[in-house]
Structures are given as C-alpha cells and as structure tokens.
C-alpha cells in the first residue's frame, strides 16, 4: 500500500545545528526534512505513518540514518502481529534492545535489502539506507510505520553518514585526534508526527461544557489550555485532537478566525489526528464543535474555542 491516502502532510525543519567542523570536512545536512502523512485503518484500528526524507542537494554528506522517538509510558509486547512490516525484526530472534515501554510498531521500508530499519535501544524507530546512505539531492519515501497508538509530536534525529571521514580517520596513526570528534556534531533534531502515548485521562477537554459526559467529545494533547501564547513570528500550530468514541463525525465543524476550517480535520470516532493550523500575528481563534451520544442515549454537543496569541 502506497502512501497515497493521507490526511495531512507536515514538514519538519531542523531545530538547531550542532557543532561546526574544524579539521575534518563538513558533514552538514542542514535543510534535510522529514514529511509525514498519517492515515487511519479503521478496520484494523491501526495508524499508518508514511515518511518521506528529503535530502537537499546542498547537503555536504549523505544522510546516514534517521530515528524517531517512540518512547511510551507503559510496558507492551514489542511485536504485534496486527502491525504490518517487511523488516526482519531482532525481537523475533529474541534480541530486544529497547525498553518494554517503547510503542510497538510495524516497519516497512522501500527495499529490505537496501534498507535497514529497527527499533533501537533508546526507544526509537530508526531507518538507514545501507552502503552510502541517502545522497544529497535525493528523496527517500515509502518509509512506513504502523502503530495502534495515536499521532503526536515526536522528536526525530537525522544523522549524516561518516563514511567520507572514515577514509581519513582509519588511515591515520594511532593517537591522532580529529575535530569534530563525532558525526553527531552534524546531527539535526526535528519535530515529526509519530506514534505517541499520551495519558488520555489527562488530556485537555477544551473548556467546561455541561453535562460532564459531553465535554470529552473533543480532547486535546495540544494545546493544553484554552489560551496559548506563542513566540513572535510563529506561523502555525499543531493541534493534536482526540475524537470521542461516540461522536457523530458528520456534525463536526471547525472555524478558524471566523472562516470555516472543517475540511482541515478528518474526524473519526475514537481516533486522534494532528492538524497544522496557520496563524496570524495577534489573537487567533479556533472553534471546534461536534455532537455525540451520551451513555443515556441523549445527544449533546461539545463546542470548544481555542485561542492562540502570537505575540
């Protein structure tokens, strides 16, 4: 299944660049980004995260690997047969490196011979293209993670390949020192959409409606309060919304700064999604509304107004 069905395409940018090279040539991969498209398979109850890594031609080195944080909160079996993948997993051979609280995932790569992918010890899912990495000016797509856990904002690490350094370092006499000391000096960190494990009992309810059973029809992992102040220049915000299990998606409506924004959202009962909304300087108001059924069979409407203040 190709990544043609998606609800959102999100672009991630480097948060910061670490050290500058001193003696060894630069491995800068500044500008590399990871796009994510998320879909939901209601039949299986599985979220499908499709990633595309774009390595600009300005990169000084190939991308050696990228890893996405998938740490969770509670222990779970690390292999789930419901999750599709085409990667031979170490866990199947009894080698489990990651903490048991890591979110279980299925992993699919474009070509299992050319690609290596795994769940790594710190609790991340990582990918690398063998024998040279992802060259500057190329794009790697159809990198897929499946998970039963909902999307959230996660951190991804993109590391350049150190292969062009190896010819220098390995040929040097013992005791030779190099600057920078490690390719991690050129590693970049970005925010991506990935499987998350929020405490759903602690989600923000969006404001106090009555009755109490109606208020959770719309819940949020972000924002966490009705009024959010953002740094000057902030142009967008990622809203992570959880839809109640008894909502009627057809009644959903969204309005951003007075204009309808319903089509930005893809409500499915019992799911979550990450939506990026554009922001203007000053006050921005996002109004969301949906009807649902209470346990007593009555219909209620949950309406929330979220304010984003760009200073």
């Amino acid at each position, binding site marked *: 299944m190709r990544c043609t069905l998606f609800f959102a395409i999100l672009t991630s940018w480097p948060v910061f660049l670490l050290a500058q090279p001193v003696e060894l040539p630069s491995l800068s991969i500044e500008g590399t980004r990871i796009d994510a498209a998320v879909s939901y398979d209601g039949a299986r109850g599985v979220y499908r995260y499709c990633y595309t890594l774009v390595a600009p031609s300005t990169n000084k080195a190939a991308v050696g690997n990228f890893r996405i944080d998938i740490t969770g909160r509670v222990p779970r079996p690390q292999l789930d047969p419901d999750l599709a993948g085409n990667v031979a997993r170490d866990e199947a051979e009894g080698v489990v490196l990651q903490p048991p609280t890591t979110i279980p995932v299925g992993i699919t790569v474009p070509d299992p011979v050319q690609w290596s992918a795994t769940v*790594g*010890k710190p609790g991340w899912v990582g990918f690398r293209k063998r024998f040279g990495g992802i060259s500057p000016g190329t794009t790697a797509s159809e990198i897929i993670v499946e998970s039963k856990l909902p999307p959230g904002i996660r951190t991804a690490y993109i590391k350049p390949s150190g292969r062009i350094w190896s010819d220098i370092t390995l040929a040097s006499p013992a005791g030779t020192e190099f600057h920078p000391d490690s390719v991690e000096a050129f590693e970049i960190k970005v925010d991506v959409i990935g499987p998350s494990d929020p405490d759903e009992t602690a989600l923000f309810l969006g404001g106090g409606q009555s009755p109490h059973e109606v208020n959770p029809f719309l819940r949020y992992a972000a924002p966490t309060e009705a009024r959010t102040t953002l740094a000057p220049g902030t142009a967008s915000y990622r809203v992570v919304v959880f839809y109640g299990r008894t909502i009627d998606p057809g009644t959903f409506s969204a309005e951003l700064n007075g204009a309808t924004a319903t089509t930005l959202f893809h409500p499915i009962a019992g799911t979550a999604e990450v939506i990026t909304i554009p922001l203007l300087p000053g006050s921005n108001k996002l109004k969301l509304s949906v009807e649902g059924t209470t346990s007593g069979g009555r219909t209620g409407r949950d309406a929330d107004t979220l304010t984003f203040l760009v200073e």
Partner: protein
Amino acid sequence: MAGFLSGDSVFSASASRQREEVGAAAEVPPQAPPIPADAIRIGTASSLVRHPEGFVTPMYERVSRPRLSRFRTSSDVPRYSEGFDGNAILVDEAGTAPRSDYMIAVQSGYVTGGGCFPVAPDSTDCLMEPDSSGNLRAVMKEREVWTFRISYIDPSDPSIPERELTSRTLTWVARTSTGRSCFTFYTWYCNEYGIDLDEILDLYQGIQPDCSMKLGAGYRSQIFYQYSRYSITEADSLPPGTPIWEPATNPATPTRLAEPGKQIWIRNWKLGPGENALRVGPQSAIINPSVPLRYPDKLDLTMTNVGGATTTKIDPGETKLTAVATECGKVFPGVNFTGTIEHVEGSGGHRHGVSNDSTPPSGRVSDAPVTFSGTTDSNGKWTSPFTIKAGEFAGDYAIKAETADLGVEPGVAVPFQTESQLRVGFRGLWRLIPNAADGILMVGHDYASGTCETQNCDNHQNMNHNARLEMHDFVGGLAKVFRKTLNTTGLMGVNDMSLPFGGAFDIEGTWGTGSHITHRLGVDVDINRYIYFAAGAPQSLTPDEIDELTEEANLKIGARRINESSIHFRMPAVDIDALLSGGL
C-alpha cells in the same frame, strides 16, 4: 577408629590416647547439646603422669600459659575450629588495654583433669586410704572446677561492689553416668560415644569493652581452682558441714565477689582510651578527578557539572581533612597530632609496569600535602586549613595520624593512631567480565596475550576494562550488532575502556594527559578493527564494514562513534549527564 565431633575439632578415642586434631567434623546428632564453638579447643590427654605403682599423680590446678590477651578486631579472635589461634597482643601486669579492642580475654593453654587426691594441697603425694578389703589405695579426685573471671573493683571507692564482667566455669568429673571421665560441657558426647575427655587444649573467655566501663586501673583477670574427692552423688549424702571442695570457696561479701577456691593466676590491668579516640580523615572519602572536556563545542550542550551547572569541564573534587578526638561522649581538646598523606603506589590502575614510574608528580592525582599537623579545639575537633584538590588522575591515599597524648590517664603503650583513605576517582565503574556467550574477546590488557599494539598496555595491565554498568550493557548490545551486521560468529575485540576509577589514562605510564583523553568517565570503549576467532588469525575489517557496523550500532543502540584511528564508541550524552548528576 571413629572420629567424634567436639565444639571445634574431632578427637579420637584410641587406646593410645594420642592427641589428634582433625579439621573435618562428623555429623552432629540433632539431639546433641551445643558446646562452646570457637572458644575452646579440646583434645585427649597425652601428658598424664602415671605413678610407678599405677596411680596417677595429683594434677593440681594444672593450667598452662595463662595470659591476658587483647584482640584488636573480630578477625583477630581465635577460631579454633578453623585452626586459627588468633592474633593476640599480650597485656603485662599493670598494663593497659584500649577500649577500642574488640575483645580482652583470659586465655590459656592446657587444662587437664584427673589425678589422685593429694595428701595436702601442695603435696605431690597421693592420699592413701584402705579400701573395703583393708588394702591401701590412692584416693582419686572425683571433681575439679576451674573458674576464669574478669572483674572490676573501682579503686576510687572500695565500698563499691566488685563487678563481674565475665566468668566461665570448667568442671571435670571422674565418672559420668556411664562411667566416663569428662568435662561436663561435653558429657553428652562422652556418654554417647563412650569416650573420655580429660584435656582442654586452648580456651579463652573475654569481654568486649564498652562505654560503661571506666578508664583506669581496677580490672582483674583471674583463674580459680578447686577439687573434690566426692562425686555429686556422694556429696549429697555427706553429713552437713563436711568440706566438699578443696580449697573451700571464700564466700562473697557485700563489696567483693566470692573466690571459688585457690587463685592460681591473676593479672591486674587498666582500661585505656580506645586507639580510635583520635580519628582523622577526609570530609569526602572520594573526590572526582578533574576532566577537561576536549570538545566543548559539542559536549557543553549536554554535560552537567558537579552541583548542577552546565559546563564545558568537570571541575576537580575537593576535600578538607577533619579530626576528632572523642570517645564515649568525652571530647579531648588540645590534642596535638601529626599525620602523613601517602599516595598508594599502583592505585587507580597506575601500576605502570613498563615505565616503572608509579609515583605521580604532585598535582597529578591531587595536591595533598605529604605531612600535616594540628591541634583539636575545645570541642575536640579540627579542620585542616588546607584543601585537597583532585588532579586529573585517579588514585588512593593512605592518611595516617597519631598522637602520644590524649591528655587523659591512663595513656597507652603506643601512640593513638588513626588511618583512613582518600580516593580520587569516579564512583560506579566496574570491571567488565564478559560471558563466553557474549561474543567478546577482551584485548589490550596484557602484552603476553598478543592483543596489544605495544608493550605499553602493561602499564595498566588488566586494569583497562572498567566502565559504568550502562556501558557494560552497551558493549553487550554492541557485540550482538557486531555479529549480526558482519554476519560472523567471530568475536568482537574490546580494547581500552577506563581505569578502575576513571581519570586520565596515560598509555605511556608517564603521568601525561595527552593520550586517551576521553577514556576517563567509564563511558568510552575502543573496539579493535578485527574479527577474532578461537583458532587462526584475526580478520581485518574493511572501512566499509566498519562504516556499516558504526551505522547499525548507532541505529540499534544509539552508539556514538568518536573519531579515532580505532573504532571508539562513547555512551550517548544523556548517560553522561546521569554520571555527573547522580554519580558524584
């Protein structure tokens, strides 16, 4: 010849009554009563002197080598069951034993029971009386009692009752219920196995001094002796007033303990302040070496200094010395003492067996002075005016101090001495000892192993594989990645990690800081560029293979490769944070 269990040895009941001590113990019947464990060593008598006419001469109060012994520590106390006679320090008449001793004990060699009843207490002639047929026969001793006792009489006030600190009574009977001669603590065994026990080889009876005991003179260690021609049964049927024991017990008075028979040995002694009444040591027993981080442009983002501030270096640990002169709540002001701070050669892994330079220049391990002196204040305390600052190397110091005078009586024969240790190093580093299944070959630790590049590895022979436990796990995971990535059943060669307590790792053994600059915290490891096999030459890794290994290790276990001519991995920075925030 059957062996029988005693409290601490096995003896034989052979016809020749040869003394025999055997370490192995027979099974103890469950109904057997307990017998003194390590405090008594028993045996069979070989020294009973037979009278030419077949009588046994009076043995009197025979107790060999009575003495007052000091045992400074619990490990100095005899363990006769293990064949250990103890490390005793003898106390002379009017001598002093310090309160810090683990035990002060009356100790003796042989105590032998039996013999005939003498015609007079000091006579060597047996009392002869006619038997029922009118023939003269020697009257034999039926019972003997030895009492080992330590007591205290307060010399400042004779009206205060004598205090018994400890006492043990040894009783020997000529005939048990089954007709055996035996010390009574062993009666069950004598009867059960049909043996005689007439001799104790060694014993002690001691006290463990405490703060309730007054300093000074007044302590007495004594051994008393009595014998009787009557068994218990016979004694019960004697007319009232018949003397049973010789010499008779001198009864207790309101201020003095009873004296059970003849005092055959006494030692008067004094209790002195504990040898540990003066204590000198560092405020912090371990301080961390300084670590100048070589790559602050990278590491200053993640490392945390002692105290929590972000830093580009790890500052040296510091400590002062403190002294306290006190014992049992009493402080000793104005105590003058002197001390030394001596680097422990070879500590910290710096044996430097090739360079033969195991003495660090000042400042390398610390700037501790070689000697110091001080005087306790009115609270019996002292804090050094100097501060000891760690250098870049790990190592140990032995700190010794002494004073000849605490200003109290009695003094002790030798100066009050104190010893402590200061360690410069990081906590939490452990030697990696892989299991055979780990797929790891330890290399670079011993030139004779053939895995060293130069003989310099013997400067830190077998000391180069220490790391934090997280690093142990890391290396284990790396070995799995190594085998899978390189598709081999060969072994991964784990070379230098850190020295036992971290700190600078001077490959040349010359106390220089230019080599192995990152192997100081227990979070670094060098991997050799070979695959090792049980037989045959190791196989070199190509640059492509090394690159694959590096990338896979990064992906799977977060391995961070440090640029070197070898394959050098460092734990992820988050673990270094843990090291510095929680490990110091």
